[in-house]
């Protein structure tokens, strides 16, 4: 396996969003691929949602169900554990990624498995399960077509739903010829898909252990669900004699009937279909059908920290549909890699820093990777107020920096400027003085009625935009001159 670029979950320092975005923005092929792809999905989603007269009611029910679950998460997890055990499954608890990986590797080793087949699971990307298994001498085969593509290329996902959205067909053809020894291959998508079918069929039939994530798991019945398109999910959860499912603790839902809400919200929001091709629901083990050994691993890995934040908590409503990525004007231009996380886009910008903790420069930059346009909140099927959480997290990032007490933090030019401005705005006389000072102070910059170039950190503005100079008269000066001092209203309260 080739070495992947570090991300927020692999420990160590990651670049900031600004740095990574600059690289992505320069890649014109990527920009074209992404623009085309996101616009296509966006339009399709709008059609799929338009068809539903009760969409808003479904969103509200989805949000409320998640709220109910999260407020009583301990009860629901215990109920889930009980239900899975009753149905013949085993339940494991993992505080963090390391523990989850250890449990899964332990199960694979106890069955002497050298190879495991996997169905797309972002939770296992988060824990770096494949690398861990490799260290234990176990090879993990990704079976989702896109996951296979990026695994073969030694890359990371750039989209929750379509991880290889950044790759085009000729790149994929070349990759399959090089890595899978396919000969005489065209770059026709059906041909490429067929190579994957043949290559992976053998793996499915031979694997002793299958590994999956979970879209949902029902506390009441213990029924776990995987939503997919290709059939690799059905293969992984049906054919190997042993199945291990890793799920974040927030994926539990109360009752079987609650699927009627989420199974309407998820497919239309994610692939813009009325229903995705395949959904598998299984409850423990059943005699004569499917795996005869089932393990469910319940993983925390930072989720309880998110839960503890009353504003941030709603982030755990996420059902990983990726609708927010597709409508995000920032994601559309930078792509997923700029986020340096297995969770890209608007949801990643709020989930990643919360999971790994505030105070890491790379992930601390993520809440700023947004113009706060609110398009994500509008499409979110479980009504996560992403802009609100972004703003909340920006506050946490700044307070963390300020409270750290380092000289560097105190002298940070942004911090100094913001504090000075806040002081100015806190007093009318200081404010009016600053208005006059700006008018006078700008003369070295203003030429011919415009400002072409700003100094220092503000230079980014004038890279592509002229700036209007401060005019001769402020509004309040005009108001005073028009109304005379008699109308110099000092306001109702201040």
């Amino acid at each position, binding site marked *: 396996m080739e070495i992947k670029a570090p991300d927020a979950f692999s420990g160590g320092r990651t670049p900031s*969003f*600004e740095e990574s975005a*600059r690289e992505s*923005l320069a890649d014109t092929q990527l*920009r074209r691929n992404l623009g085309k792809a996101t616009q296509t999905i966006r339009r399709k989603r709008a059609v799929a949602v338009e068809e539903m007269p009760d969409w808003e009611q479904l969103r509200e029910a989805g949000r409320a169900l998640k709220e109910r679950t999260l407020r009583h998460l301990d009860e629901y997890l215990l109920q889930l554990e009980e239900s899975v055990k009753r149905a013949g499954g085993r339940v494991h608890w993992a505080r963090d990624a390391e523990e989850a990986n250890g449990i899964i590797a332990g199960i694979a080793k106890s069955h002497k498995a050298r190879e495991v087949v996997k169905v797309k699971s972002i939770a296992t990307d988060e824990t770096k399960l494949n690398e861990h298994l490799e260290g234990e001498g176990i090879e993990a085969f990704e079976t989702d077509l896109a996951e296979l593509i990026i695994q073969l290329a030694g890359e990371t996902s750039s989209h929750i739903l379509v991880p290889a959205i950044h790759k085009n067909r000729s790149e994929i053809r070349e990759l399959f010829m090089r890595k899978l020894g396919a000969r005489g291959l065209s770059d026709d998508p059906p041909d490429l898909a067929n190579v994957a079918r043949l290559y992976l069929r053998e793996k499915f039939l031979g694997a002793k252990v299958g590994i999956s994530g979970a879209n949902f798991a029902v506390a009441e019945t213990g029924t776990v669900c995987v939503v997919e398109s290709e059939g690799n999910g059905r293969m992984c959860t049906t054919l190997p004699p042993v199945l291990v499912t890793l799920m974040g603790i927030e994926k539990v839902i109360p009752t079987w009937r609650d699927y009627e809400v989420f199974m309407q919200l998820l497919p239309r929001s994610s692939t813009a279909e009325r229903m995705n091709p395949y959904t598998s629901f299984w409850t423990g083990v059943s005699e004569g059908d499917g795996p005869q050994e089932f393990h469910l691993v319940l993983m925390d890995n930072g989720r309880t920290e998110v839960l503890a934040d009353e*504003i941030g908590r709603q982030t755990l409503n996420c059902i990983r549909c990726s609708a927010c990525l597709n409508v995000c*004007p*920032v994601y559309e*231009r930078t792509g997923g890699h700029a986020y340096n996380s297995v969770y890209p886009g608007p949801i990643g910008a709020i989930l990643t820093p919360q999971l790994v903790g505030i105070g890491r420069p790379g992930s601390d930059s993520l809440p*700023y*990777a*947004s*113009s*706060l*346009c*609110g*398009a994500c*909140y509008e499409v979110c099927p479980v009504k996560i107020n992403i802009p*609100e959480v972004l*703003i*909340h997290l*920006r*506050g946490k*990032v*700044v307070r963390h920096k300020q409270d750290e007490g380092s000289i560097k933090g105190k002298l940070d030019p*942004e*911090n100094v400027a*913001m*504090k000075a*401005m*806040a002081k*100015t*705005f*806190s*007093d*009318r006389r200081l404010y009016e003085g600053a208005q006059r000072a*700006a008018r006078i102070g700008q003369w070295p910059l203003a030429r011919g009625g415009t400002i072409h170039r700003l100094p220092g950190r*503000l230079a*980014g*503005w004038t*890279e*592509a*935009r*002229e*700036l*209007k100079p*401060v*005019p001769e008269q*402020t*509004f*309040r000066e*005009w*108001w*005073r001159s028009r109304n005379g001092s008699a109308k110099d*209203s*000092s*306001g*109702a*309260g*201040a």
Partner: protein
Amino acid sequence: MIPDGEKGSTLRVALFITCFNDTLFPETGRATVEVLERLGVRVDFPLEQTCCGQMHFNTGYQREAIPLVRRFVNVFKDYDAVVAPSGSCAGMVRELYPMAAELAHDKRLGADVEELAPKVFELSEFLVKKLGVTDVGAYYPHRVTYHPTCHSLRMLKVGDAPLKLLRAVNGMDLVELPEAKECCGFGGTFAVKNADTSIAMLSDKLRHVLDTEAEVCTAGDNSCLMHIGGGLKRQRAGVRAVHLAEILASEATEERE
């Protein structure tokens, strides 16, 4: 000057100019006053107002924003309505002040905010939804396209109020902006912190504006317009950015001057 008994004249209305307009776009403030007075609204301008704290709050300097929130509440709390020619500043007060009060752990401030927030309006929603006016008697013989700013659209949900006002303007050729609802890329400090991404977003917005062959691009927010207009000017595109209030304030007589 102000005909008594007309709609709106009994309301105590305060103009919340916003620090940005006060300093950089006084013409928008003048136009706002003109439109409101033309409709018989008695406008007050409390001079103690400074900044609502949006930039601080949205950039994460929330502790620093709280005194500004308090100040705003004290200055404006006794008015019946507060009108701002800015969707994002009105949105800050209406949608984010409750969060600020929560952060300040100040119940009284929270109660004051709860009372004041619903009385804060962006100009177009004040005219259309509060006063029930769509024709403000404006004359503007130009080809114009309208950019619905994100905070007007998705935070305040002003809906088609600005378009209703624009459609009633005499002499104007209003053309639809393609992909109008897409963010222009301004986003406050985003435009500086993530300048590259912001510019990438702007360039698409500019392309759409130019596609309309409009002479004027208008919106309800000078911050977005400064960004769009600054880009147009840098490109020497021959299209200017004009605030909605200024179009609404234009009259036939002025045009002939």
